[in-house]
């Protein structure tokens, strides 16, 4: 007899919920009559994300101690559970926003299947406890996203986005898996917890593997200089999908990177903290300076997400429990604000029938007062103003970097924040203080199409963004419980 592993169903539950949702909405996409296809597929996707969120919350509650389950393929711990909750939350909001996105009838169900599938992959990725499940989760989420980007193949930009993401993403996955092969060669194990201490800390193969794995993660988190795909992909993909990628993909890439580095490479800490600092500074410089020059809203947000990768990398640079807490906390308002701001971009696009730019945003704040307020709340959160979760998150990240002795990084971060005001406030200025062009005023006469799903998502995103400022303590407690399970 071969000894078969015991299955811990609760650990698998979040990703299984999304896998079931994928299958259900894919079947709905071909078996349900055309008229109800969108609603049924959408419902399954929403139910999948809601189920995944609930399952992850239960998992969080019932995993006070970190341990490997299912033949040590997955971690059952609060860190993975909190990551799953962030992914499921972002996915839930994205599903709401995605409902009203225009699409041809014959692919109206598939996008929800792919969205659910990407979330399932992300959760498996976040829970993985060995390099093989890690790669499996990564490919699961990436392949879903490649297709999701290129789904509206009538638009050339969508094909461009999908193609670029496929090539660069495939390339980065190859680098990561090559790195994993080096690590395996040096240590003889794929198990994350066993890698540490198996080889001398200066082993050349191990260091090479570490570097390549780090590069693979940097691609997925779109940290400069591995960011070049980001603007084109975010611009070309369907707007809700861009929000999902900014809020969820980046989050899991950074969380898993921190887990792998701290669990498997604790002996090389001096190496990867310096590398993360270099990535952070490059991302901040490239992201902020390039964002200043953008006129297209989605492209600007793509560069803003690159600069945020820089800020979030402070947590990895700090390599401390405080840094982990800061990262987990900051991803909550950041994820909400990302989905929210791309939702508003989608709203504007649907009204105008053309890409949102800083120029055609003129008058948006007067035409739609509530959406205007929501937009500047998200911008202020990105910039790190008080009364939004972005403020607390940034303070925490800066404190973590300072505590670990990275004072010069703090200065770079402060300057970057100042520069970022230039483009975040430019959006606020554009929606209130620019005269509305004459022909756009004519469009005002038409009754505004009300998308209740999208409004709900934006409202929820505002609640989370602002709420995380006022409800800091409960969220920090969650993050603290999760962070205490990493060996930092």
């Amino acid at each position: 007899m071969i000894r078969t592993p015991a299955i811990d169903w609760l650990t698998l539950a979040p990703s299984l919920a999304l896998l079931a949702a994928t299958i259900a909405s894919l079947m709905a996409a071909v078996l349900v009559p055309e008229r109800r296809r969108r609603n049924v597929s959408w419902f399954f996707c929403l139910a999948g994300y809601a189920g995944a969120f609930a399952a992850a919350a239960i998992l969080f509650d019932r995993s006070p101690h970190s341990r490997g389950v299912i033949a040590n393929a997955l971690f059952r711990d609060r860190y993975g559970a909190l990551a799953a909750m962030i992914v499921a939350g972002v996915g839930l909001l994205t599903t709401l926003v995605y409902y009203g996105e225009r699409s041809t009838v014959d692919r109206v169900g598939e996008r929800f299947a792919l969205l659910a599938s990407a979330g399932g992959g992300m959760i498996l990725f976040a829970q993985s406890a060995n390099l093989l499940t890690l790669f499996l989760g990564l490919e699961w989420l990436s392949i879903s996203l490649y297709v999701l980007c290129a789904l509206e193949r009538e638009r050339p930009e969508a094909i461009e986005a999908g193609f670029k993401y496929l090539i660069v993403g495939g390339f980065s996955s190859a680098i990561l898996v090559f790195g994993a092969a080096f690590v395996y060669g040096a240590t003889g194990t794929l198990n994350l917890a066993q890698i540490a201490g198996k080889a001398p800390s200066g082993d050349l193969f191990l260091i090479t593997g570490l570097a390549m794995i780090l590069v693979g993660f940097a691609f997925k988190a779109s940290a400069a200089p591995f960011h070049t795909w980001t603007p084109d992909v975010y611009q070309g993909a369907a707007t809700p999908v861009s929000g999902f990628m900014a809020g969820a993909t980046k989050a899991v890439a950074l969380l898993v990177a921190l887990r792998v580095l701290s669990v498997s490479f604790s002996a090389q800490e001096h190496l990867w903290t310096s590398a993360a600092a270099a990535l952070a500074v490059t991302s901040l410089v490239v992201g902020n300076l390039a964002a200043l020059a953008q006129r297209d809203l989605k492209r600007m947000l793509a560069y803003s997400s690159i600069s945020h990768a820089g800020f979030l990398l402070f947590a990895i640079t700090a390599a401390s429990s405080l840094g982990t807490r800061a990262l987990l906390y900051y991803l909550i308002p950041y994820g909400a604000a990302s989905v929210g701001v791309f939702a508003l971009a989608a709203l504007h696009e649907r009204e105008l029938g053309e890409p949102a730019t800083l120029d055609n945003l003129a008058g948006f704040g007067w035409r739609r007062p509530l959406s205007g307020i929501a937009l500047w709340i998200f911008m202020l959160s990105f910039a790190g103003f008080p009364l939004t979760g972005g403020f607390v998150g940034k303070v925490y990240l800066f404190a973590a970097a300072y505590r670990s002795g990275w004072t010069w990084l703090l200065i770079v971060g402060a300057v970057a924040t100042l520069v970022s005001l230039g483009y975040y406030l430019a959006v606020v200025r554009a929606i209130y203080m620019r005269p509305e062009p004459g022909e756009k005023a004519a469009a005002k006469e038409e009754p505004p199409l009300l998308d209740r799903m999208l409004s709900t998502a934006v409202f929820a995103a505002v609640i989370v963004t602002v709420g995380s400022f006022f409800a800091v303590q409960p969220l920090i407690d969650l993050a603290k419980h999760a962070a205490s399970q990493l060996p930092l």
Partner: protein
Amino acid sequence: MLRNWLPFLIYGLFASGITGLMLFISFALSTRARTKPAQQGLPFESGVSTGAPTRQRFTIGFYLTAMLFILFDIEIVFLYPLAIVLDKLAWFGFSELVVFVGLLAVAYVYVWRKGALEWE
């Protein structure tokens, strides 16, 4: 030490042998005319094509079907190793097999209902 590599040598011989054999057979059994084709004897006239294009193009439907075939074919290959150890894996293996085939069935239903199996 070197003895450990013997299976690789045999494997390598097989790999190159089969490839070589395939190349050889396609030459040996090909139905090309032994003599030069008549067209090669014709004088060259610039700009005027002297015969039908020799390159054949396949319809896109061929690639779609071929791709789907390869996809499902590869999945079936995975069943062989599982079948060999199925009695040792007992019910665990069997349930894994059912899940795997179930997922394949979902994909099959999708492909079928999407009309990818219709030949136009």
